[in-house]
């Protein structure tokens, strides 16, 4: 059964609680899907993302706190200060299950506190507390001192660092050493003067049928055990093993997407990473242990350690800035986590600045005297601190690649790699056409957390084997990945790697989620209804973005990815041309039941059980 919803108004300092709405549970099944629906219902898409009217929605999946493995994950949703779209980031660790143990399923944070505060949620009570003793601390110290002050080392904390306090547009929310990094959800916390959410609970999550839940969980465990990679290579290499794969495919971006990463970047790959690993780590109740705690023991970064870097960070902190040095990547990763920055947007924004510097658009005097050429990791470290504290040129680059490039002017916007303001993750879509269409159409911009093309990257032949270089059939594949993948992960918040490695190869995701739902909630949903959650989520978010002013013209890719073919590697010669883009978009819209402008038809929304909201004509705010 779902927990309660806590509504916290920081302006009035009122806290109220309500039972989880039955319709929200039935139609969105909790997690990120329900959080986006709450945003849709409660936040005008045209509000200032840093203003009083934006809300931060903290939402758990329906499996949080249950014995189901790999489900201690939490979604943070708000209007994104970086993109202006629906903003969504998620993270794991121990915080999510601890929050669920307080009886809470979701928290809606409204308004803005007069002075820095933190939110305490304990068993049966929640309080807004003074955070002046924590403001200014990095994320590691914030967690430590909250636990010390409250005399309980088992308190779990989601918090921001100096970057969030200074409203850096891509500030992250950190839970332990995990990051809900993307789209500036930490910036929204900072704008509300909310330093942290600290939780400690002791409640057991009620299940409608415990015996049936145990049986359904066994199916999930069996699928995990049957995976050829999950407990073997994935545990051993973590996500860093994707470096070897994508270098082989010629799809790992380097030099701000000017070229694919070559073999020199195997120095920051999974195999190389094992030499730095001091231990494995894991999220609560997950037997996989994929997290790699890596330490640097020699060279200029000796003494740095991080829980990572994950694959996406090895691209953004590594190859995108031409840094083929694992020690530097570990240091940058650690500093991003400590100061509370999204690793992907940070690296991509600095890579844009490096290209502008090498092309003479930015002069040395513009960048505080730094020699900002590609590969200069010392300059990257210096910039990281400047950005987090908005010092000097850091204040400019704190806005993200799109806004920073616009301020730099000249040709700089040509070198800002983003879709709707969100910088791409570590997959060059020129060699992965469905991934490219997903970047264009994902409601958060160039996102890897939804609609990831598992078939193209990993060769998973479900629903069928595909030619990653072809555009044919990719609209239907993209919808499959957005809706099936999205519904399985965005309702339950099941870890994406378990969903991908254990369930997708057997196309079991919707069935397992449906079985777990029935046992947990006490009423049946079919696997088809689970998939409809993904479609419903996509449509709700689309309508919200249209109302915010986004149009078909925003469903595009950076010019470079449409006009400059890859020059080397296994994807050499490929682009997604404007004609490819238009053809795929037309088909995608048609399959979705959207018109030629990408506006969902009222009948399609009604068929999904939505209230067929009138979509305002898109107007730029």
């Amino acid at each position, binding site marked *: 059964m779902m927990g309660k919803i806590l509504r916290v108004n920081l302006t009035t300092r009122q806290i109220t609680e309500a039972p989880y709405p039955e319709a929200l549970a039935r139609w969105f099944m909790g997690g990120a899907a329900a959080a986006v629906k709450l945003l849709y219902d409660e936040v005008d898409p045209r509000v200032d993302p840093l203003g009083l009217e934006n809300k931060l929605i903290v939402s758990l999946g329906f499996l949080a706190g249950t014995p189901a493995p790999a489900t201690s994950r939490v979604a943070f949703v708000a209007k994104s200060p970086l993109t202006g779209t629906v903003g969504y980031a998620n993270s794991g660790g121990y915080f999510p299950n601890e929050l669920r143990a307080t009886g809470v399923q979701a928290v809606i944070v409204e308004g803005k506190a007069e002075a820095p505060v933190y939110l305490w949620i304990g068993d049966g009570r929640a309080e807004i507390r003074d955070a002046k003793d924590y403001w200014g601390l990095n994320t590691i110290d914030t967690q430590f001192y909250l636990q010390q002050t409250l005399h309980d080392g088992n308190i779990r904390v989601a918090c921001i660092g100096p970057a969030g306090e200074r409203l850096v547009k891509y500030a992250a929310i950190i839970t332990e050493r995990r990051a809900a990094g993307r789209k500036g959800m930490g910036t929204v916390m900072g704008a509300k003067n909310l330093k942290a959410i600290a939780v400690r609970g002791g409640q057991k999550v009620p299940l409608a049928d415990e015996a049936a839940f145990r049986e359904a969980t066994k199916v999930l465990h069996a699928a995990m055990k049957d995976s050829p*990679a999950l407990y*073997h*290579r994935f*545990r051993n290499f973590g996500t860093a093993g994707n470096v070897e794969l994508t270098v082989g*495919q010629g799809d790992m971006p380097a030099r701000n997407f000017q070229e694919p990463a070559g073999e020199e970047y195997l120095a920051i790959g*999974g195999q190389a990473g094992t030499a730095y690993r001091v231990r494995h780590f894991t999220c609560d109740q997950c037997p996989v242990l994929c997290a790699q705690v890596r330490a640097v023991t020699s060279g200029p970064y000796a003494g740095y350690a991080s829980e990572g870097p994950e*694959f996406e960070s090895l691209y953004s902190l590594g190859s995108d800035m031409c840094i083929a040095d694992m020690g530097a990547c570990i240091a940058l990763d650690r500093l991003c986590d400590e100061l509370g920055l999204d690793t992907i947007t940070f690296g991509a924004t600095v890579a844009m600045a490096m290209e502008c510097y090498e092309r003479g658009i930015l002069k040395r005097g513009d960048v505080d005297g730094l020699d900002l050429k590609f590969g200069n990791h010392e300059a990257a470290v210096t910039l990281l601190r400047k950005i987090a504290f908005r010092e000097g040129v850091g204040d400019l680059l704190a806005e993200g690649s799109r806004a920073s490039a616009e301020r730099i002017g000249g040709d700089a916007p040509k070198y800002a790699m983003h879709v709707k303001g969100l910088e791409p993750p570590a997959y060059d879509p020129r060699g992965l056409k469905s991934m490219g269409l997903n970047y264009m159409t994902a409601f958060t911009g160039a996102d890897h957390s939804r609609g990831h093309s598992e078939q193209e990257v990993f*060769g998973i032949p479900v629903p069928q084997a595909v030619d990653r270089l072809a555009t044919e059939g990719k609209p239907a594949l993209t919808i499959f990945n957005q809706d099936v993948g999205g519904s399985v992960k965005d309702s339950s918040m099941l870890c994406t790697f378990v969903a991908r*490695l254990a369930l997708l190869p057997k196309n079991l995701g919707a069935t397992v989620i449906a079985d777990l739902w029935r046992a947990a909630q006490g009423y049946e949903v079919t696997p088809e209804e689970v998939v409809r959650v993904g479609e419903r989520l996509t449509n709700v978010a689309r309508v919200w973005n249209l109302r915010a002013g986004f149009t078909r013209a925003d469903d595009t890719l950076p010019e470079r990815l449409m006009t400059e073919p890859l020059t080397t590697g296994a*994807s050499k010669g490929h682009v997604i041309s404007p004609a490819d883009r238009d053809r795929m978009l037309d088909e995608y819209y048609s399959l979705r039941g959207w018109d030629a402008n990408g506006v969902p038809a009222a009948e399609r929304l009604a068929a999904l059980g939505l209230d067929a909201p009138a979509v305002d004509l898109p107007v730029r705010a």
Partner: protein
Amino acid sequence: MPTVTVRTMFELARIVGRHTVELTVPGGASVRTVLEALAAAHDGLRDRLFDGGTGGALRSYLFVELNGRDIRSLQGLETPVGEGDALSVLIPVAGGAGSSPGAPESVSRS
């Protein structure tokens, strides 16, 4: 006699001794011919590539791309190769399907 570049990774690269090798194969050769030639030159590689002996299926934990295209969307192992072709034998770590030949890497539990 076309020359084909073959890229491998992880334990396959360790057996081969490097990540990329060039092989010259007879005219009319297929992906299978190339991989058989590679396996013949490196002890222990055949079992990592094929189920059973000569003529066996590709291990299902692998996927192979010829010039960036999954051979399953072409003619599988019988896909012809030509001069200058690039063959990638890929091991998905954070994704993938099929059975494993075992757990080749040791892991330490925390």
